[in-house]
């Protein structure tokens, strides 16, 4: 870097600044809009930062009375779902996303282990997995609606958890497979010769080494689940409401989309992802370091 010409340094820094602006602008706009009063949501020219910041949008999200008050003040009426609290949607999303991520990673790890160590399904099996992932969800969603209603899985936690687990499992297997492949079979072999069964050898020797990879896979899958919309839309009908559905519900008959309220809900719903990412960041940065294997 130090040997670079000054104009090159300027160019490089500008590129970094520009890409950061592009990356962070949506977040800025989200937070900024969430603090704007009703009449500034869709102004032209845009108001970048409001002079009259308000927490009203957040109140509408979390307190039903505030939502009703707001609806009464407007000529149109809010949808009945919206006049309720958004707490339930956070709760539903948390239950569904967390459990679906958990199952996906647990089954994914076991399946990946089997694929790597026992060549389960033959050489091409992992690629076949990946094709499931490439399948556009919209193509299977209609038959799934039919199946789910026959199996009485529509509008249940279990149903959505099942759908999410099934759809993220290929990704989970594919990712974790590559981490397990980096761990030489001899490490488990050594544990097995020195007194452990195969599964215990996996748990004590291999799992600690791939922990970072498993956790980063979990983060990716959690984000996928947390922001999933299509399945949540068609496989529920009011009992189960995820945050993505709740955000889409903020519509009023008179004033169209309630951008400020949606922005407030959007701002709050990014927090768990940021928190989760922050907690496991330590493991994401640290790669797989082997001091014990000669290559």
């Amino acid at each position, binding site marked *: 870097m130090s040997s670079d010409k000054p104009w090159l340094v300027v160019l490089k820094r500008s590129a970094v600044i520009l890409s950061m602006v592009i990356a962070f602008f949506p977040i800025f706009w989200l937070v900024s809009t969430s603090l704007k009063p009703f009449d500034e949501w869709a102004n032209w020219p845009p108001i970048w930062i409001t002079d009259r910041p308000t927490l009203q949008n957040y109140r509408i999200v979390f307190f039903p009375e505030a939502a009703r008050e707001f609806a009464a003040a407007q000529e149109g009426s809010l949808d009945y779902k919206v006049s309720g609290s958004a707490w339930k949607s956070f709760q539903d999303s948390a239950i569904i996303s967390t459990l679906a991520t958990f199952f996906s990673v647990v089954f994914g790890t076991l399946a990946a282990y089997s694929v790597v160590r026992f060549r389960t399904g033959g050489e091409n099996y992992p690629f076949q997995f990946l094709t499931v992932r490439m399948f556009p969800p919209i193509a299977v969603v209609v038959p799934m609606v039919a199946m789910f209603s026959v199996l009485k899985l529509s509008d249940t936690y279990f149903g959505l958890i099942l759908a999410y687990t099934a759809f993220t499992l290929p990704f989970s297997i594919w990712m974790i497979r590559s981490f397990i492949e980096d761990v030489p079979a001899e490490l488990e*072999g050594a544990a097995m010769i020195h007194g*452990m069964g195969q599964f215990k050898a996996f748990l004590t020797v291999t799992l600690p080494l791939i922990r970072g990879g498993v956790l980063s896979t979990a983060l990716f899958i959690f984000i996928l689940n947390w922001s999933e919309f299509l399945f949540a839309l068609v496989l529920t009908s009011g009992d189960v409401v995820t945050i993505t559905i709740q955000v889409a519900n903020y519509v009023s008959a008179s004033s169209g989309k309630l951008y400020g309220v949606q922005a407030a809900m959007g701002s709050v719903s990014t927090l768990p992802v940021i928190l989760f990412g922050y907690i496991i960041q330590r493991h994401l940065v640290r790669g797989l370091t082997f001091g*014990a*294997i*000669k290559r």
Partner: protein
Amino acid sequence: MTAVLQVIGLTKRFEEVRALDAASFSVAEGELFCIVGPTNAGKSTLLKTIAGLQRPELGSIRIRGRDMAGVQPKDRGVSLLFQNIALFPTQSGFENIAFPLRTAGQTGADLERRVREVAALLKVEHLLDRLPKTFSGGEQQRVAIGRAIAGESDLLMLDEPLTNLDARIRIALRIEFKKLHRELGQSMLYVTHDQVEAMSLSDRIAVMHQGSLQQIGTPDEIYHQPVNRFVARFIGTPPMNILEAELGSEADRPFLLASGFRLPFPQARMFSELRDKGQKLGLGVRPEAMRVAPTEGPETPFAGEVFWVEHLGSKSVLDVRLGESTVKAVVAPDHPVTREGRAWFGFDPQLRLLMDLESETFLR
């Protein structure tokens, strides 16, 4: 002596490649048995199969007389040092050595004492609190050996334990293994591609090639009475010369004839048998057994051309054109013939080194 390990007709294939081809041998109590062969001969596969990490297609393995079919690796009573060491990277030197002891249920002072004892034997006390990634290559190797010998095992298997180490450590560790074997009385199955290592360490050697065991015997037998061309050329540096030869006779005196020399054939009965069969013959001559002189003499009757000389310090290796064949001869560094040019050669034909060229096996 009872056999610790019996391997009977072990066969294993990977795809189309035969990694093990009906391998059979046994290791006696307290014996140091070496398996030597080139890379990809199937040596590591053999050890992993004995350890139970891979399943054989055919054949059986018995350890102390007990059939190992379906027995888990941990219950086989064997220990294995992997070629790639495979120390547990998240565990300290101490924990690595303690691993087999912990799984066997040892704890507290007993465990501590045993780990220290092993560490002292291998001179790795200073590594006990550190992680394997901070060890040097030789240190990793020694800690891995520590883990392999810490627990009790009927058979200690070592897969190329000295490969990838520099020469100084290699020789030091070779002596340590010999001592370990002597002091512990441990039965060992030792795999290497280095024939010098095999010759210097073992009680018995098996030479392995393309998944099958070519010959099993003492280092002496393997060196002096190889069974076939592969063994003859693999053991010994430079490798054994094998000269094409024909049988002939003159006035009822049989002789061996090749381009460049004619030698009296020492045994009449064998001669007539061989001549009736009409086999193409080869004669094995160790480069060390070649006589070399600057002048013709009764001991050195054949003329040849030295066309390349390799000075190795303790000896010199001559590449010689003898008739139409090329042979190698080893001489002392102060020998009169150590330069390119004409010289005279001689050797005694040994019946046990007479080869059937078609099957490439030595006649017995």
